[in-house]
């Protein structure tokens, strides 16, 4: 691997790291002003604990020959040196960022009522029990062997985290006053700062997943760009037509929906496909965020509506648009490129497997934590604010203080 590729992987790792604060601001801005620090902390915590675990053994468990799980050959990165010009080290760091951001995604659904101690215990357990196996299957295990495709983590990250988010929202129950009372974003500028950072960082997330600098990386870049634009545009148009107003939160949500949907597909599709994929995600997610009201689960910041649905939709569209010829690649073609229904089925199957693993195991993990230390804050924290009760700090201090 040439130095430019090593550079690209390192840079992409830095960009994905930057997405974690981005996600924190995206979520934190949307949350209530007295819960924002709890939201930020849940996200930052992921990037404190996960790297250590990744380094210690999770990386090793995620890679290697096995079809179901890796091994312990590279615990503490043993056996990895710099003879390849840093390529492996850079790749380990890049993958560590993915591992850190995936549980962070879940935090949006548990906003405003989860004990931070429970979260701190949940993240490492979930990483090992849920994330590592699915990651292995999707990126170098039996699901990959069957031919299903996931470029940068539609199945392994977004659908997986989305299913876990649903489980967590169901188990935690509703926030006080939900859904009668709407909690509008306490700071839309903070949401938009998060959105800007997320989009910027997502180029590393998707184009970096080529793990080299080449045509596929460039096309993944372009796809990331177009799908986000299309997702945001369509969400805004749906709002405009349906509600009479185009909102900033709609634009932000649509951008993220487009980004989520293109994530699994970024290195497999070309031409007008990313625009179609982004547009579908924008439209579908714009309606999907309302499901929670129908079914009564308090997915506070719409992890299910955006990441689960967006990831699933994006993953399926690979079955339609995968275009191996364009990439000169050895993957199955989608329905529209002469590949028949085979890939579509595999895509569906892989995502169902991810859900079937993630959802129940997340429930089990949380039930275990609930039994031991409890998962929900006492009601006073919901009234006085998660920030002061759980973290003994407040987000903003006025001149009086």
């Amino acid at each position, binding site marked *: 691997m040439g130095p430019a590729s090593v550079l690209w992987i390192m840079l992409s790792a830095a960009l994905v790291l930057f997405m974690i604060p981005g996600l924190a601001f995206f979520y934190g801005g949307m949350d209530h002003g007295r819960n924002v620090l709890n939201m930020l902390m849940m996200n930052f915590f992921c990037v404190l604990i996960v790297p250590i675990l990744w380094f210690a053994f999770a990386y090793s468990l995620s890679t290697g020959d096995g079809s179901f799980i890796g091994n312990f050959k590279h615990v503490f990165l043993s056996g990895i040196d710099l003879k390849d010009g840093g390529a492996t080290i850079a790749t380990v760091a890049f993958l560590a960022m993915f591992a850190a951001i995936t549980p962070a995604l879940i935090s949006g659904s548990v906003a405003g009522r989860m004990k931070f101690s429970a979260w701190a215990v949940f993240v490492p357990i979930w990483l090992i029990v849920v994330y590592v196996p699915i990651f292995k299957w999707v990126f170098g295990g039996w699901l990959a062997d069957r031919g299903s495709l996931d470029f940068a983590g539609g199945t392994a990250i977004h659908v997986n985290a989305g299913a876990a988010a649903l489980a967590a929202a169901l188990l935690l129950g509703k926030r006080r006053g939900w859904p009668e*009372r709407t909690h509008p974003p306490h700071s839309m500028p903070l949401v938009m700062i998060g959105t800007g950072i997320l989009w910027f960082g997502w180029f590393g997330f998707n184009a970096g997943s080529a793990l080299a600098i080449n045509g596929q990386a460039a096309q993944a870049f372009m796809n990331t760009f177009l799908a986000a634009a299309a997702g945001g545009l369509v969400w805004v148009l749906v709002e405009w037509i349906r509600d009479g107003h185009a909102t900033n939160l709609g634009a932000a949500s649509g951008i993220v929906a487009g980004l989520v949907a293109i994530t699994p597909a970024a290195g497999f599709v070309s031409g007008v496909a990313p625009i179609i994929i982004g547009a579908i995600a924008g439209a579908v997610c714009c309606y999907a965020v309302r499901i929670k009201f129908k079914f009564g689960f308090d997915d506070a910041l719409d992890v299910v509506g955006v990441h689960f649905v967006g990831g699933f939709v994006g993953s399926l569209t690979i079955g339609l648009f995968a275009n191996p010829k364009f990439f000169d690649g050895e993957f199955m073609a989608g329905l529209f490129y002469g590949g028949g229904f085979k890939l579509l089925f595999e895509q569906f199957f892989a995502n169902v497997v991810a859900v079937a693993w993630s959802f129940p195991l997340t429930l089990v993990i949380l039930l275990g934590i609930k039994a031991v230390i409890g998962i929900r804050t006492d009601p006073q924290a919901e*009234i006085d604010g998660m920030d002061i009760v759980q973290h*003994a*700090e407040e987000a903003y201090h006025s001149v*009086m203080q």
Partner: protein
Amino acid sequence: MPTLITAIIKRSRLDPVRDALQEVGAAGLTVCEVRGYGRQGGQVETYRGTEYRSDFIQKLRLDLVVADELVDVAIAAIKDAAATGKIGDGKLWSVPVDRVVRLRTGEEGDEAI
């Protein structure tokens, strides 16, 4: 003569108090974010490992002008809805008002409330 009732309540009691007032027919009110100092003491926060007491606790101030005959029920309604029984529930006071005017129409007195 209309009366001005001012109540300092906990942040989380706004909705119940508003609903209770509405029920007794005192629909209009004005709210303001304030900070209170009293027996409750402050809340303890930490700043880089140093604990400190933030002396002033966030409260809400409600001002409502009500017609004479409503004063007692309004006060009772606020009392019921605002009390949690814990220290820091707040205070209420009332002051008789000379004139009340609805700015839009110029109506005065009970008409204006």
